[in-house]
Every structure is written in structure tokens, then in C-alpha cells.
């Protein structure tokens, strides 16, 4: 087995890590330890077959090939999604070309389609959500890694992980029945009173709209950003902290100069990862954004995102052009999230050096 000394999980100083690759002597007819045990019990037919036939080079090569094929299937999936989305959106690609993304018409009846309102809605909700979530997520990560008493650390990180495990549709359900009324009756009028002069809180406020969608998005991307940021901050060596503290820094100065400054690339990566999640979030947003293709300055106005127009109209789409326009929106979403995620992963990897990402 090819053992590389760069593997982070291994201590390179141990002799085993530098051992030469071992090859199973495939041609020898031998009795392995595992099979001895098997023979002491009643040998199952499968084991018997394996002990006679499984030792050849053929079995080894077949196994390795199957594993390789499964690994390559991940490439295949991404490539295949791309090809099929391009193929199915061809009518719309041919008719509208690039102007599809700069036109704001959305008229299924006359077959005139443009994605600008959805791009606006997606960007507006995602960026607003980031603006709300990032400071909070950083606060949580700082609290969990640097300030929190050890006893509280596990329960709080468990709670934030639970937050990540709640399905999108349940967030949507909660938002429809709790957040929307709050937005309509308390928070909306309050914001209008205080910030109405900015023009961002004009118009009638039904509770559904860009702002409500942004709030639910912020709640949803918080755990992702905070847990990745926490991992990255944990990757900063303790010696850095100790060195800064030894110079007489307060705890905050230690966090700012010793931890955040070292982890900043990874933190940017975590934020972009959150952005990727926000761009593609579908169900909860669809349920509270109001679903109307408008470009409006007011955050109370209903909007539409790329993902929610697909969710809402796809199964009712009649006609090839309508369907292919929706698939083209999906294609755009696919390409944008791939780019965003690739950038984010590259940044996160730069800090954690390719250690597997945590599962959410």
C-alpha cells in the first residue's frame, strides 16, 4: 500500500509509516489467519469459495477496479448533471442566449422568459442572510473555541448541530406560522418606524417577502458557517495563542491577532460555503418569499429566487419553452453553486490541509 508521509493522520516518525509497500503474495497458496478462524467454525460456502478463488491477482485487481469505478462515478455524476441540464435547456438557450439572464420578462403565456428578477431575489436574500448570519456565526465560533467553559462546549455545539439537522421544510413551516405573523405585526412596523426613511421598508407589508426569506435563510446557514469556522479556529495551533498571551494581550487581543488573523482565509471560505448554501436553499424560501417576479427596492416586497421559481412552477410548466427556461435556471444555479463551492472549499482546504470536511 502506498504510504505517503504527508498523510496528516499518521505520525511520520513511526517506522510503520515509512515501511515499504507490502504486496500480498498472490500466487502462493497459503492459509491466512482469517481463514484459519473460519475453518475452525463451520465454513460457510462463501468462505470456502473465497479461500479457493479469492487469492488470485484477478480478485485483487477486480476489487480495486470496482472501487475506482465507484470513485469515478462522483465525477460522472457532476458531469452527467451538467450535460443533461444543457441538453434539456437547449430550446431556451437557443432562443434567448445570454440575454436570458439580463431580461426581466417572465411570461409563460406568450413564451417570453428572462431570469433577472430571480437572480435579483437570490442575491438579495442570500447577501442579506449573510449580513445577518456572519457576525452571529463568528460570535458563536469564538465563544465555543475560546471563551466557553468546557462544560458548556459540548451541549452548545450539539445544539447548533441540531439546528443544521432540521429539514428545510420544517423551517419553512415554522416561518409560515410564526415568523410571518411576527414580521407582519411587530417587526415590520417597527422597522418601518425606525428605518423607513432609507426607502428599504416601503410599501405594504404582508409578512412575506425578501426580508422574511432572508431571516429564515440566516437561521439556516448559521450552523454551517459557525461549525466550519469553529473547526478552522481549532486548527490554529495553541502555541500561537500562548505566544500572544505571553506578550500581555487580553483575551480578545489574543483572539483577534492570534486566532482570527491566522484563520481568516478559512473563515472567508466558511462564509462562502454558507453563501453557496443560501443560494440554493429552496423550500423554506419558497414558502415565505411571496413568489412574485418583481425587482423592488423595498425588503417588504414579495420576490422570487432561482430555486423557488423551479420549485413552484416546474411541475405545472406546460410547453417545451417554459420547461427548458426553468431547466436553464437550474443550470445557472448549478454552475454558480459549483463555482462558489469550489472557491470556498479551496479556501477551507488551505487552512485545514485537505482534512475531510465535517458532515452536517
Amino acid at each position: 500500500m502506498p504510504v505517503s508521509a504527508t498523510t496528516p493522520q499518521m505520525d511520520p516518525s513511526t517506522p510503520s509509516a515509512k515501511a515499504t509497500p507490502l504486496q500480498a503474495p498472490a500466487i502462493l497458496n497459503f492459509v491466512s489467519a482469517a481463514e484459519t478462524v473460519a475453518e475452525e467454525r463451520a465454513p460457510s460456502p462463501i468462505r470456502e469459495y473465497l479461500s479457493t478463488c479469492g487469492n488470485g491477482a484477478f480478485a485483487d485487481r477486480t476489487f480495486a477496479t470496482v472501487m475506482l469505478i465507484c470513485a469515478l462515478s462522483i465525477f460522472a455524476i457532476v458531469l452527467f448533471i451538467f450535460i443533461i441540464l444543457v441538453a434539456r435547456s437547449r430550446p431556451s438557450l437557443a432562443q434567448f442566449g445570454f440575454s436570458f439572464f439580463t431580461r426581466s420578462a417572465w411570461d409563460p403565456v406568450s413564451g417570453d422568459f428572462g431570469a433577472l428578477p430571480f437572480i435579483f431575489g437570490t442575491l438579495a436574500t442570500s447577501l442579506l442572510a449573510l449580513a445577518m448570519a456572519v457576525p452571529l456565526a463568528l460570535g458563536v465560533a469564538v465563544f465555543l473555541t475560546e471563551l466557553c467553559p468546557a462544560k458548556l462546549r459540548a451541549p452548545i455545539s450539539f445544539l447548533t448541530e441540531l439546528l443544521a439537522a432540521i429539514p428545510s421544510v420544517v423551517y419553512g413551516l415554522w416561518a409560515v406560522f410564526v415568523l410571518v405573523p411576527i414580521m407582519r405585526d411587530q417587526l415590520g412596523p417597527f422597522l418601518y418606524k425606525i428605518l423607513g426613511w432609507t426607502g428599504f421598508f416601503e410599501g405594504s407589508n404582508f409578512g412575506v417577502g425578501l426580508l422574511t426569506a432572508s431571516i429564515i435563510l440566516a437561521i439556516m446557514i448559521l450552523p454551517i458557517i459557525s461549525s466550519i469556522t469553529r473547526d478552522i479556529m481549532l486548527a490554529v495551533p495553541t502555541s500561537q495563542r500562548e505566544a500572544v498571551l505571553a506578550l500581555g494581550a487580553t483575551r480578545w487581543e489574543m483572539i483577534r491577532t492570534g486566532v482570527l488573523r491566522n484563520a481568516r482565509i478559512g473563515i472567508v471560505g466558511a462564509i462562502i460555503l454558507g453563501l453557496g448554501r443560501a443560494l440554493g436553499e429552496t423550500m423554506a424560501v419558497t414558502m415565505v418569499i411571496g413568489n412574485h417576479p418583481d425587482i423592488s427596492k423595498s425588503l417588504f416586497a414579495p420576490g422570487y429566487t432561482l430555486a423557488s421559481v423551479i420549485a413552484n412552477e416546474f411541475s405545472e410548466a406546460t410547453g417545451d419553452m417554459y420547461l427548458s427556461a426553468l431547466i436553464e435556471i437550474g443550470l445557472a444555479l448549478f454552475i454558480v453553486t459549483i463555482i462558489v463551492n469550489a472557491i470556498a472549499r479551496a479556501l477551507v482546504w488551505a487552512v485545514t490541509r485537505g482534512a475531510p470536511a465535517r458532515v452536517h
Partner: protein
Amino acid sequence: MSVNPIQNPIPSAEDQGQLRTPMNFQTRRMRANSMRRYVVNNLVTGLAMLSTVLVVAPLVAILVYLIYKGASSLNLAFFTQIPAPVGEVGGGMANSIVGSAIVLALASSMGIPVGIAAGVYLAEYGRGKALAMAIRFTADVLNGIPSIVMGIAAYSLIVMRQMHFSAFSGGVALAIMMVPTITRTTEEMLATVPHSIREAALGLGVPKWRTVISVSLRTASPGIITGCMLAFARVAGETAPLLFTAFGNQFWSFKLNEPIAALPLQIYVYAISPYDEWHRLAWAGALVLIVMIMVSVTLVRIYAGRGVLKGAS
């Protein structure tokens, strides 16, 4: 630092008193500075605590409200009956629960083997290879692709060809979503298996494939099961990929080739409906869904927290 004591070497009149105690050689500016640092430090600590509270609060709010609304709406009929027609009281989501189970079983049977095999390649065969690095990166990127895109892909691939919605296409969409998560956890877990025991097996003449299955995978199995359950919990709540693949069904259906009901889909349909009775059922469904997911996530926590693997590495 803005205040440099060297620029201000002569203490002012009121600092003379301070100078009598040699240990406390501080000018006024230095005191003000350390005061500022002290305040900023406490301020930031307070802000970090506040943000933690702000993050935990919605979770608690959602959970409490969900349990309150869901528990009061749950009854036996929910688990035994199919949805009642509009306007009638009662009915349940039995067909959705079974439908979800079918679609998830389908997705797991496709996604788990491929995911584990890909993880085995990355950890056992691809260490240090550029190809493995590229696959790892692609898996991470695939993990971030929105679920609705998977839905469209499965729709374009299967539904458009067959001309009808099916449980199978929903299973495929969810399986694609499971693969990257399982691949990455499997790889992570296999990497914690010490090389010495692999080498011991190989030294006894066990073929490599056998070593992978009987030694590496078996040692890492608790962690791999954890990864599979996390992936399962993640796709169990997915609605978007099922919207136009499994599509939903108001009646019993066990055929893989037909539209099938699924719990998240039914919750979505009921949540945006105008009927109070359906809202009640949506809350009950959400509670059942979340209990299912939370139980699996918590089990994973307990299982993974036992440290089966931590000692091994």
C-alpha cells in the same frame, strides 16, 4: 499601539503619586489604554455570549413550538390513515410515512454502496494521488450543489424519458445526494485505522481486497455507520428533489414505477394550503419527521462519542 510611553517619558503632575510605588509605573495614557483594552475584551466576550444566545434561541423556539403544535395534533389516525379529502376532518399520513421509507430505502440501497466504495478508493488506493485529490474535491463540491438541482437532473434523466413521475426517480435523486457525504466520512474513518494492523494482515498473506473488507472496513465500521446515518438523516428531510420526481400521492402506493407520497412533500403541500385541518397535520408530520431525524443524529452522537476509533488512531 497608539500610545507609546517613550514619547511621553515625563510623568504628569498627577502621575507623580503613582511613581512612589515603583511596581506600578503607569502614565495616565497607559492606564486609559489598559482600561480600554479591558473594556473591549469584556465587550467582545459579552457580544460572543449574546450571539450564542441569539443562535440557540431560534432553535429552542422552533423545537418548543414544534413539539407544542405537533404533539397536540398527533393521534393514532395520523399513523394509520391516508389523507382525508379536502374539507373532511381527520385523516393521517400513513401512506407518506411508508412512502418516505420506500424512497429512502431505495436511495440508501443505491447511495450507500457507491459512497462506501468511493471512500475505500480514496483511503486505501488513492492516498497521495492527484486523481484522489480531484475526486475528494469534486465530492465536496457535489455536497454543496442545491438539492433542487438534483431533482431537476433526476427529472430530466428519468421522468422525462418515462413520461411519468416515479418513486424510483426520487430514490435516484436522494441517492446522488447521499454519495458525497458517505464517501467523505468513510474516507475519514478509514484514515484513522492504524497502518500497523493493515500491514499485519498483509504480512500474513491476506490479499489486499480481503484486508480492506475484513480489517480496514471492519475496524472503521462504527464510524462508517455514523456517516451513513448522517447522510440518511440529511436526505430524509429533503423536499426539493422529490417535488418533481416522487411527486406525492394521496393514496397508498407501493410500486416503484408510480408517484409515491413522502412525508416532507406532504408537509410542504399541507403547510401552504389554506385549510386549518391540513395545517394541523403538517405540524404533526413535521414533529414525526424531526423526531426521526433527531433520534438518528443523537444515536450517531452517542455511537461516535464512545470513542471506538479514537483509541485506535
